């Protein structure tokens, strides 16, 4: 078993909670213990139910979006169902149970240029990663979405020092097209030094699959951050299984970040 960093179930106060776009929210909580041991790519299980209610029963997994001063953490999330809807109604001052940091995050190597590629909410874990890398190395971040308004928080990325490249399907910002279109261009530009790059990606399955395949063709290692339905997030229930090339993988414990080679991509999600 991999060595486990200590995890905490913290009663965290909501410090800020803003709506960044139609269905997109940024939640900032004070969770000093979780925050102190968090690493990029890790996630938390966040309680969304009201006190006294048992429904929805399960916590919801969210990537750690950023770590801020004073033991604070932020999450970037999209309202997609009843859990995120309930969460979006909570206000600063209310308390929230946050269990984390969970899972294995991105593995970065000091001598290698990281290319971060995020699609939609897949950008959530990448800000923390960009911050983490920015101090010591050059990084590129490609962010894609359907339209400009979805790409909130580009400024936060730029502030970390990473070079931000943008793709939107409707062309309302940056390149018209997909993350892979921008990545293709970038890899060509970097062709000389592509051997010195590594890709870290998070986003919808088809996008990650395309990024992984492009990376494979260029012989570049590619780390992918997967999702799956989770009950515990802590390795207890074995419910978060996805197919790996050789065996079943458990997203919450062995992931959420995996080497692209270990995933059985054809099974979809």
């Amino acid at each position, binding site marked *: *078993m991999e060595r*486990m960093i*200590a*995890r*905490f*179930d913290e009663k965290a106060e909501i410090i800020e909670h803003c709506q960044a776009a139609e269905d997109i929210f940024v939640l900032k909580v004070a969770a000093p213990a979780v925050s102190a041991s968090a690493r990029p790519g890790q996630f938390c299980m966040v*309680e969304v139910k009201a006190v006294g209610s*048992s*429904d*929805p*029963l*399960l*916590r919801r997994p969210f990537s750690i979006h950023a770590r801020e001063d004073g033991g604070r953490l932020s999450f970037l999330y999209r309202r997609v169902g009843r859990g995120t809807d309930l969460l979006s109604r909570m206000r600063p001052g209310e308390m929230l*149970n946050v*269990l984390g940091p969970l899972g294995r995050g991105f593995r970065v190597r000091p001598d290698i240029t990281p290319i971060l590629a995020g699609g939609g909410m897949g950008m959530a874990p990448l800000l923390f990663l960009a911050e983490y890398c920015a101090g010591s190395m050059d990084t590129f971040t490609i962010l894609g979405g359907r339209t400009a308004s979805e790409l909130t928080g580009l400024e936060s990325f730029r502030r970390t020092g990473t070079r931000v490249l943008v793709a939107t399907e409707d062309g309302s910002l940056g390149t018209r097209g997909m993350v892979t279109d921008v990545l293709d261009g970038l890899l060509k530009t970097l062709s000389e030094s592509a051997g010195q790059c590594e890709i870290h990606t998070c986003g919808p399955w088809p996008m990650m699959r395309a990024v992984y395949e492009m990376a494979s063709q260029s012989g570049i290692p590619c780390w992918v951050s997967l999702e*799956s*339905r*989770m*009950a*515990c997030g*802590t*390795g*207890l*229930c*074995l*419910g*978060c*299984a*996805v*197919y790996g090339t050789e*065996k*079943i993988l458990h997203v919450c*414990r062995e992931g959420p970040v995996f080497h692209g080679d270990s995933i059985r991509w054809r099974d979809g999600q």
Partner: protein
Amino acid sequence: MNRNFPDLSVTIGSLSLKNPVVLASGTCGYGAELGDLLDFGCLGGIVVKGISLEPRAGNPPPRLVETPCGLLNAIGLENVGIDAFIRDKLPWLMGMDTAVIVNILGDEIGEYAEIARKLDDAKGVDAVEVNISCPNVKSGGAAFGTDPWAAADVTRAVKSATSLPVIVKLSPNVTDITAVAKSVAEAGADAVSLINTLLGMSIDIDTRRPSLGNVFGGLSGPAIRPVALRMVWQTVRAVDIPVVGIGGISDANDALEFLMAGACAVEIGTATLVRPGTAVGIVEGITAHMESRGVPAIKDLRID
């Protein structure tokens, strides 16, 4: 006896627990997964993930779906197998100051017996819990636990293979759970625990497919508590062996309902998945309840 210091200890046959709160199988891994989140020394015991003779890969994903106040799971009994369990997992558990109960399962009676034999030889196991909700492969695939005779056969086989206390874990998917309970009691079970999950399913109306890779799954969590409590109440009144209550217990009040119904101990399942420290909070809550009401011992909680 000092009314201010209630005695929480209980015995299940020859097994002594410091308190009646135990982690349920399949919701606490092999223990180590929880090590940093829970103080095992505060617990009565832990029932580890169900173990088979050979390792099992489990069911295809998706394996989980949330339902109203409940969880449907179709993990498919993924586990490392008895040998790897004894070699790799048991040593960690032996270091914890709590009772270690090993949940076992099989496709046929011989497998149950062989696992039990191996556990009998191993050090650090305090009791065996026999999961009879598994399909009886040799006779058509209905679960052992739905047939009083098959359940008794498994019980006898396990009892003769080990000198450890044997708790038989009953399936709720039956017309009369007391019939199965009586049958395994006669076959020598030291105790019964109940309930395992209720068989359920869910359909994803967008994909137009069952939500679980395995189509059917086991329903657990607060949703099933009233059914579990009813079955515990009935079983306590039908057999003379101890009854361990399981099903949707999420806080001390829930646990007290089962203890009042006459359960000698309780197991906490899904609630640990939602909040890892649940069981410890339940021990505290039961203690506080007994203190404030002057209840000297767990058995005194029972009502008629």
